[in-house]
């Protein structure tokens, strides 16, 4: 019997596909998410919009909150550690969380290195804004990728940019003659073996969800049509007027993302979505998607 293999790590992400992973901060919110049909919840002390508003250093969530949420729901529970903070990751693994998100939403603990995820039995999901970054994370042992978007803004534009960038770069790598692959690996800063894998398969070697700014059923449909395997919704649910209704609608939209009639039906009468921020008005030093290297 073998445990903690890459197949098992990537396998859980395969099971989450076509689903919605929701950020929650309390047991009540976790139950609402499960009831609405979330495939997993991300246990947090604060959702990204509140982290953004609060400023200061954002750290791993109190284990008490995570354990309470793990007790309250039967779906998988994820939790975030800071970039490079392998001690936080060790703590989260010992709690038995089902996935660790090494996340730019928290304040990075290391300005140069990410966690060596091969050292862990628990799988990791990591953010990426382009193919090179995604493949570096996979090279470090990430079993799932999420495009970063700009978390806590209610604005989907960065999520779209990152999804399109990765999609376009995959197409490019797949179409290049083999003798050019080493040069593109160098240019993207990606491991050659993984570039070769993308060249041969025409897709990322792991599941790719989209995150950061998705706040309506239409946003979920857009990003799924651009090729996401599923969506993370952070602030979009519990910053909306009617979280249960919004959560259910985004779940249905993610399943039927290609069906405008269903999308129109689930989008009706949801109340107001979360407040959306114009990204050009956010000071550069406050952008989260640029964290990670």
């Amino acid at each position, binding site marked *: *019997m*073998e*445990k*903690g*293999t890459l*197949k*098992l790590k990537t*396998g*859980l992400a*395969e*099971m*989450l*596909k*076509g*689903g919605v992973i929701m950020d929650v901060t309390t047991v009540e919110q976790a139950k609402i998410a*499960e009831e609405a*049909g*979330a*495939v*997993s919840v991300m246990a947090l002390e604060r959702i990204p919009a509140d982290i953004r508003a609060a400023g200061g250093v954002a750290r791993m969530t109190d284990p008490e909150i995570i354990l309470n949420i793990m007790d309250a729901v*039967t*779906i*998988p529970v994820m939790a975030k550690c800071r970039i490079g903070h392998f001690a936080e990751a060790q703590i989260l*693994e010992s709690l*038995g*969380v*089902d*996935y660790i998100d090494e996340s730019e939403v928290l304040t990075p603990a290391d300005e140069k290195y990410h966690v060596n995820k091969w050292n862990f*039995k*628990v*799988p990791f999901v990591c953010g990426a804004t382009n193919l090179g970054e995604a493949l570096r994370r996979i090279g470090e042992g990430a079993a799932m990728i999420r495009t970063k978007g700009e978390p806590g803004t209610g604005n989907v534009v960065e999520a779209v940019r990152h999804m399109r960038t990765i999609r376009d770069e995959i197409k490019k790598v797949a179409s290049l003659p083999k003798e050019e692959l080493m040069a593109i690996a160098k240019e993207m800063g990606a491991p050659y073996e993984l570039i070769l894998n993308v060249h041969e398969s025409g897709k990322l070697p792991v599941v790719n969800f989209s995150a950061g700014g998705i706040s309506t059923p239409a946003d979920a449909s857009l990003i799924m049509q651009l090729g996401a395997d599923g969506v993370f919704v952070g602030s979009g649910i519990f910053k909306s007027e009617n979280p249960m209704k919004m959560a259910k609608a985004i*779940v*249905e939209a*993610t*399943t*039927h993302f290609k*069906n405008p009639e269903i999308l129109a039906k689930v989008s009706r009468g949801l109340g107001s979505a979360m407040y959306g921020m114009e990204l050009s008005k956010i000071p550069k030093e406050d952008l989260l998607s640029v964290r990670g290297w």
Partner: protein
Amino acid sequence: MVVIIKNKELIRVGVLALQGAFREHINCIKKCGADAVEIKFPYQLKEIDGLIIPGGESTTINKLIKKYDFKPYLDEFYKSGKAIYGTCAGLILIAKKVANEDFGLGYIDVEVARNSYGRQIDSFEEYISLGFNGGEKFKAIFIRAPKILSAGPDVDILSEIKDNIILASQGNVLVSTFHPELQDDTRIHEYFLNMIEKS
């Protein structure tokens, strides 16, 4: 030898595509040479010879089955004798009884419990024997897998590990607690295609 023709037509398998690893099952069936399609709405069940309910989150898939009123159509499909295969979450959804939950469509006489081996760090791979195939062992992938707690007298046990039933059938229904769709080995999908041919 895998059979992919029934009534002089290529067998078409539907894979319930509400959430989960449905694409992997479609790839496996196509690799065997048969046709496979996504099932998103109940009316599509009329167009297929057999149905796979894939792995995923059983609570999510269960809610979408209810929301889109699949139950009467699935019941009709089952009663018509057409073959159904449930993997992991799919097994949970078609079992007769699910511990601590109110779902279970009742197509196979087993009681199951969800996430029975623990959390994700307890997920495991194991080489298993296939009751219908004396050949090489099959590498089975168990992810937050359910356990079959008990099985009725009409259930055929096709594989077990440490007294846990992991692959079983009853009439036109096949279930596994693991994920053959994540492997290149298509022997279980071939077995299911043979069930469809006989159904």
